């Protein structure tokens, strides 16, 4: 069922699609984190901002991705990376903003109060106490967002830029299953690898978090 010779012949192209896929899947996560941090912190600081922000993000999240890609074509162009990256960034935000807010909320009151009592100013407390303690919760959100971003990129193939998703269209149009199988396997491996790396990163960054539930 699998034509190994096809894989051999198309290796350079597959490699290129994989690279494209990685960029389009991970850039939204990075951008999402950069935007979610200030927005999340603002929502913690001004409680009333939180519900509207999450509301808007949830509405965006509920829009069918294909529809969003199509709407964006006139702005960002057909078959451009940006057409995929922009909506995926919004999807990432829908997961990451609540993670940042929950992460900060996971700092126990007594820990925050003893930081205040020892003479931490607000900025120092944020950087040295609140954010480091929020890391495990935020990283849990990053894992969800990353895996879903990796799988969503392939939908972009319908507007001409879908990384490995192109292999699905190619295989389907030619009634030739090999590219489809290759695409699925690579996307799965990519998701597993990214998730595994994040787990390792979490272990290294937060060695203190293993018995966290008791804190």
């Amino acid at each position: 069922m699998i034509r190994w010779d096809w894989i051999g012949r198309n290796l350079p192209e597959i490699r290129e699609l994989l690279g494209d896929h990685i960029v389009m899947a991970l850039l939204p996560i990075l951008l999402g984190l950069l935007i979610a941090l200030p927005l999340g912190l603002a929502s913690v600081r001004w409680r009333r901002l939180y519900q509207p922000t999450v509301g808007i993000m949830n509405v965006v999240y509920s829009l069918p991705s294909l529809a969003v890609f199509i709407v964006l074509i006139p702005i960002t162009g057909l078959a451009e990376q940006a057409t995929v990256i922009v909506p995926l960034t919004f999807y990432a935000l829908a997961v990451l903003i609540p993670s940042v807010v929950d992460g900060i909320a996971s700092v126990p009151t007594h820990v925050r109060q003893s930081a205040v009592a020892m003479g931490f100013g607000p900025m120092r407390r944020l950087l040295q106490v609140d954010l480091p303690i929020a890391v495990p919760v935020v990283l849990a959100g990053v894992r969800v967002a990353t895996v879903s971003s990796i799988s969503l990129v392939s939908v972009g193939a319908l507007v001409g830029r879908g990384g490995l998703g192109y292999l699905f269209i190619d295989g389907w149009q030619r009634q030739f299953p090999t590219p489809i199988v290759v695409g699925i396997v690579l996307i799965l491996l990519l998701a597993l690898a990214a998730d595994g790396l994040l787990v390792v990163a979490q272990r290294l960054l937060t060695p203190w978090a293993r018995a966290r539930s008791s804190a």
Partner: protein
Amino acid sequence: MITFEGVTKRYADGTIAVNDLHLEVPTAEITVLVGPSGCGKTTSLRMINRMIDATEGKILLDGVDVRTIDPPTLRRGIGYVIQQAGLFPHRKIVDNVATVPYLLGWDKSKARARAMELLERVGLDTALAERYPFQLSGGQQQRVGVARALAADPPVLLMDEPFSAVDPIVRTSLQDELLRLQSDLHKTIVFVTHDIDEAVKLGDRVAVLRVGGTLAQVADPATLLSAPADDFVREFLGRDRGIRRLSFVPADLPLRTDLTVPDDADISKVAGVAAASGLTWLAVVDSGGRPSGWVNAADLPLSGTVADLRLMPYGTFVAGRDSLRSALDAALLAPSGGAIAVDDEGRVTGVATAGALAAATSGIAAEGVGTGRG
């Protein structure tokens, strides 16, 4: 010295947590704030380091209004210990302890060296330094909390129910540790608790607050127990007030030295000692001068030595150091009703008879007449 001058705290919702509090917290002493839940203890404490600002009145720290000091600066000079320890879960123990030195800009090695010194000081194994808080027991975390509060050697220490979340045995050892530390360090300590036993054990002075945030009485523990200001305080001190009071009365008991026999004495000698003293219970002392039990001379065999007799259990107290409560406790362990007095090395110095103990306790009760109904 910390002085509350007519301090009132009204929260935004109208709750009056502290009402016109006038209180002096003397330098180098432990002042305990005690009272039922919601009486404003935590609020009072937090107004000192400005985690909460007073609505009315002033709090002076050595004559300076705390409101004129920038909060972070003020707080770095005041140690703070709370019930759950409040350790930073993401920092190793040594770095937790070094928190305030870091904030004050000490260099890292000096701050860490200081932290290690403090860990030892509060009775912790320095091998724990590289662990994270979750790897410590509750009692150990609480000691780390105390070490952290002391790290920058602040003159003032605020402690909000620091030992109430640990089990009673650990609590007792933490209390003893605090008293030991205080005898070296002479900090000005404000200690909050709702446990009256803890209050009278630790406090040089005890301030009793009532719900509504008013001060009911402030006094040294012995005065508080012997002369509660009103029914509220009396009620709060509880039913064991009389027994607790005995902790503050030294065991100045008349000691009899004619009621002891060596553990190798002949039965006839025992009978002779008993007859001469007019009492039947005698304390048996070994060759090292240490007590080994009581014998009842009313119940002697016809011949033999003390070694053949069944010795009855006994209790001891250190004359000149222990309280009347310890002496009474020692007496309650012995069927003779008497307590054996020993010196610091545990050698017998005499015997307090049941009669002497009864006279001493009824003397205390007579002093209390008119000041309490008990």
